[in-house]
Every structure is written in structure tokens, then in C-alpha cells.
């Protein structure tokens, strides 16, 4: 028989009580090992309080509206996971924002807007052009920026000479002016690996942006045949780095419904999985155009490779949130 201690206690008190506190601490203890990005200094009890302060009455109402203590724990577990993911991401995000601001300051292409924390083009008008976030992200994705993978302990190299500036220039030309947070968002979308947990954080924090200016200019991309071979080569290099789940996403790249069925997840989750992999491949390939070519090459490779795709049963377990 399922118990309802958390709700009973809250209904008697008018707010959450001991049963909820005990459950919340237990959920945090369960999740902490999965978030190595959090310092040892982060005391679980303090994190519980930070979480509760952030989620407030919304959490209190939600956790007492579900049918029993088991459901309350499951709901808490999801909310805690969402919150911890963001706590871990916040750190590299802040570092990315700082570095981005330095980069904007150093270039004579950009100027601070009359609006605090906003940036505009040095020779452009200081005004909002009301363009959607999706459009700006598409513009950023179409600008070529080579990302050199970190070698050993070295920093991530983001963009050859002027490439990042060219991307920001295109974005600000379309937008007029943008808050530095929005620019950081766009960069975070464009370079998702910068926001991956601990390792990427360290690499991002240590990025010496000068290194980017010192790297050699990119190839001119004149010969399509060479480019095509390049994509195939890149795809072949990428293939072994893809997880079994990534391969499944590639197989259903244009079929979110099929992917949802295959992985036993909902359609919204399937869309997100495809979008995440697409963004990662754009980052790796250099821009959206080359990302598409690499995806096309990868689809061919994965389909040819069908026989060695590991059992899908394992994956549907791993990826399921629908059971």
C-alpha cells in the first residue's frame, strides 16, 4: 500500500514538513555522484536549501499534488536532476560569457551599446532589429568556425583567425544589438561541447583566446571533390566516437516519430535528441552546411554498418523516460 506522508503532513501544516525534507535530502544524496562537476565543498544540505529556495511554492504544490510518496520522490528526482544540470552548466557558462566579453572588447568591429550589457556593431546603428532567437542561432550555425579538439591537457581552440568575430558580426548585423547573455546563449548553442561538464569547464576556463588568433587560416574550400572526400573522411573519423544511442539517432535523423518508438521515449525527447546531435555535428564539422554533409555521410556509414550496431534493447532501457 502506498503511503502519503509527505502530502498528509503538508496538508496539516499548510507547508512541507519533515517527511519532505528527509525525502529531498535522500534524493540529492542519490544524484550527487552523477554530477562530479559539483565541488566536494557543496554540502548536500545546502544544495537542498538552494534548490528549495529556487523552486519555492511551485515545488511545494507540485510535490503534494501527486498521488503518493513514491510519486513525490520521482517528481523530486526529476526536478533535482534538471536543477543540478543547470548548476553544473552555469559554471562553464559564466566563464564563456567572461571570455566572450573580453573578445568583444578587444575587437574594433564591436562597440558597447547605450543599453547596459548590450553590444552592437562599431559602425552600425544602436537599435533592436527584432529578430528571433532561432534565426540568430541559424545565422551562427552557418558561419564557419573550426573547433580544434583539445589535445591532452591543452585548451580547446575555438575558431581560426577572425572566424569567431565573423560569426558575431553576422549575428549582430541581423540583430542590431544584443545583451551579452543572448550572445553567450548563441555561442553556447553553437559550441555545446564548451558546456559539457568538468573537463570542458576546465578547458573553457583556461582558454587563452590569443591562441585562436595565432592559428593558421582555414582552407579556401574551392574544390568540391576535395570537400566531399573531407566530409567522408570526417564522418569515418566520427563514427567510432558515436555511442550506440547516437547511431540510432543518426538512423532516424529525419524521423523523430520513428526514433521515439525505437528508443521508447516521447516525441519531444526524440526531437531534442536529434537537435542535440545535429548541433554537436555542426560544431565538429565547422558550420551548418558542412554539418549537413557530414550527417549525410554518417547516415550512409551507419546504415552500411547496420550489422554491427549493438542491440537496441540495451539502448531503449538506457534512454527510456516513459516506463
Amino acid at each position: 500500500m502506498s503511503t502519503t506522508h509527505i502530502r498528509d503532513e503538508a496538508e496539516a501544516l499548510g507547508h512541507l514538513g519533515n517527511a519532505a525534507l528527509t525525502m529531498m535530502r535522500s534524493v540529492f544524496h542519490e544524484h550527487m555522484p552523477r554530477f562530479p562537476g559539483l565541488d566536494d565543498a557543496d554540502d548536500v544540505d545546502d544544495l537542498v536549501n538552494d534548490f528549495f529556495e529556487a523552486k519555492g511554492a511551485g515545488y511545494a504544490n507540485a510535490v503534494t499534488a501527486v498521488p503518493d510518496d513514491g510519486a513525490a520522490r520521482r517528481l523530486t528526482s526529476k526536478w533535482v536532476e534538471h536543477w543540478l544540470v543547470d548548476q553544473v552548466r552555469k559554471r562553464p557558462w559564466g566563464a564563456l560569457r567572461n571570455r566572450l566579453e573580453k573578445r568583444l572588447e578587444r575587437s574594433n568591429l564591436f562597440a558597447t551599446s547605450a543599453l547596459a550589457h548590450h553590444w552592437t556593431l562599431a559602425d552600425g546603428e544602436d537599435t533592436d532589429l527584432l529578430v528571433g532567437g532561432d534565426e540568430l542561432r541559424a545565422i551562427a550555425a552557418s558561419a564557419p568556425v573550426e573547433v580544434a579538439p583539445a589535445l591532452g591537457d591543452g585548451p580547446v581552440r575555438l575558431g581560426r583567425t577572425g572566424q569567431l568575430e565573423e560569426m558575431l558580426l553576422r549575428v549582430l548585423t541581423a540583430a542590431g544589438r544584443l545583451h551579452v547573455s543572448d550572445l553567450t546563449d548563441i555561442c553556447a548553442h553553437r559550441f555545446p561541447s564548451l558546456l559539457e561538464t568538468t573537463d570542458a569547464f576546465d578547458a573553457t576556463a583556461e582558454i587563452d583566446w590569443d591562441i585562436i588568433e595565432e592559428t593558421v587560416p582555414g582552407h579556401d574550400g574551392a574544390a568540391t571533390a576535395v570537400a566531399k572526400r573531407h566530409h567522408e573522411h570526417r564522418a569515418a573519423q566520427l563514427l567510432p566516437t558515436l555511442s550506440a544511442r547516437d547511431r540510432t539517432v543518426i538512423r532516424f535523423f529525419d524521423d523523430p516519430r520513428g526514433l521515439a518508438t525505437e528508443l521508447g521515449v516521447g516525441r519531444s525527447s526524440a526531437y531534442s535528441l536529434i537537435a542535440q546531435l545535429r548541433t554537436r555535428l555542426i560544431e565538429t564539422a565547422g558550420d551548418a552546411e558542412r554539418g549537413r554533409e557530414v550527417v549525410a555521410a554518417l547516415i550512409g556509414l551507419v546504415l552500411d554498418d547496420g550489422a554491427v550496431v549493438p542491440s537496441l534493447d540495451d539502448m531503449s532501457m538506457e534512454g527510456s523516460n516513459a516506463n
Partner: protein
Amino acid sequence: MPTESSERWFELARRAPIGPKRGGLLRSANPTDDVSVGQIRQAYWRESTAALLITGVDDSLARARAVPVALETGVEDTSTVVVEADASPLYGPIAFWPDAAAEIPFAVLDTLIASIPRQLLEIITEATHHGDAAEGLRRGHANPLLGSGAAMAIDELFDAFEVLQNAPGLTLSAAATPLAQLDVPLPLIVDTLHVPQARAMAIRIGKEPLTRDEALQLAAAANLAVDDILNAIAPLPVDLARELQEPRWRKPIRRRAVDGDEDGARTQLGYEAYQLAARETGQGQQHWRQRLEAIVAAEGR
């Protein structure tokens, strides 16, 4: 002995009261609460759960038009309408996705969390057409980053909403009388199924459901086809089947459900009320409600 952080937690708890700001605690499934427009209810089906805002009700079919809701602060995208804490009926902000409205069966609905006043409701459901219209109301700031906590929460919300839309609801049977009388002597039913005479009688007049196994046993003993046995069981009267879809019966149904089989538990509860009705007069949803109340009250909490 409470530690410093526990004290702080209790301070936070006191600052985050449950229930609506006005009218005290409006929790759980009060028998008088019908499903109505403007309610925010917790909904669940199996493991999938979401808060929903009711924006329309089809009473005869026991279906509602509903909009997914997030009580989780910071979970929003550009298609969200956010009611800030000041304007919210709860002590916290609420996020709505009015463009995602879809139909769900009453059977997934549970606890009433809050009610949105009609005027605010109209602004929320129209907000996407008229832009920002009221104080304390705003559009979602931006789409969350891929892989962020908010993006995960929105995906989970919409996945759950999809499951809720496809959950089984009211199925109206053609007639409330059995297709055929069960032509099996009473003692045979008692002996075969090891049931008391009262239940055997109910089975004989078709007012008691049988499991597939019981139907098979009885068919073998009486030398009849299984379908003859199953055809003799009356479907529940329409008004009773309809009343059973109300969220007020969710708790007793859930309590009776074996392995989460709410459909089976709902049917079982329905037949108990149906048997009770054999000894009483009166029909219609109101009467069925009273009989169900009597059964639930008799079994205690």
C-alpha cells in the same frame, strides 16, 4: 536537534505554502468538485504525470481540453505564457503553453491544485494572439539551451502530455442489459467459483463482472462457450460509467487497483454500485454518485 541548515529549510518551507492564496486548502478530490474550466489539476497515467489547465469540458464524453502547465520555476520557452507570482492564484509563478491545448480523458485527472479566475484565464488563452495584455503576465523569455534543465523539463512535460492524451477514457456501451441470460444453476456457480451465494446470484443476473479465468472455469463446468458466459454480463449503465470517470473516484479506484490496473478497478467499483442499485430505486448520475459514496464510505479510508 535541528541543525542550522534544517532551520533554514523550515523557514523556506513556511515561505512556500501549499494551496491557493485565497480560500485556504483546496486540496484533493472533494466529492463536490466537478471538472470545470479554469482548474489546474494534477494529471497522471501510469508513470507519466503533468499539471494541466482545463480550458474546455465535454461533459457527456468525460473529456476535457487542457493546456500543459509547469509549476517548476524557470521552465519556459518562447511559446509560454507566465503568470508571475504576484498575479498567480498560488504562492509562486505558473507557466502555461496555450498553443499546445489538446483533449484528454477525465480518467487521467486527479488533485485540484488551483483555479484560475475566468478573466485571467481568457487573457492566458488569448495571450498568444494579443501579445502581453495584463500586469503580472508575460511571454516566456527565450527557448532554453539544448540539454539544459529547462529543456529537459519541457520535453518531459510534453512527453507526459502525449501519454495523457492517449490514456483510455469513457467507452459508451450500446445497452445496459445483458445480451443473454446466464443459464447456469446457482449451486453450480457457487461450487465452481467458490463464491458466496449472494455473489453467485449477482453473477447469474449479470451484475457482477468475471475475470477471464472465472469465465473459462464456469464455461467448462456448465458446458457452455466462453462467449455465452461473457455475453451474459451486463455492461455498466451509461450514467454510472460516466460518473466513474470523475476525478473524485480516482483515489478509491487507485486504492483498489492491482498492479496499477485502474481500468479493471474502475469496472469492479462500478459493478459493486450496480449490485447495490439492484436493491434500490433511482437512476441518473446523481444516484450513482450517492451509491459510490456509500461504498467508498463503507470501506473506510
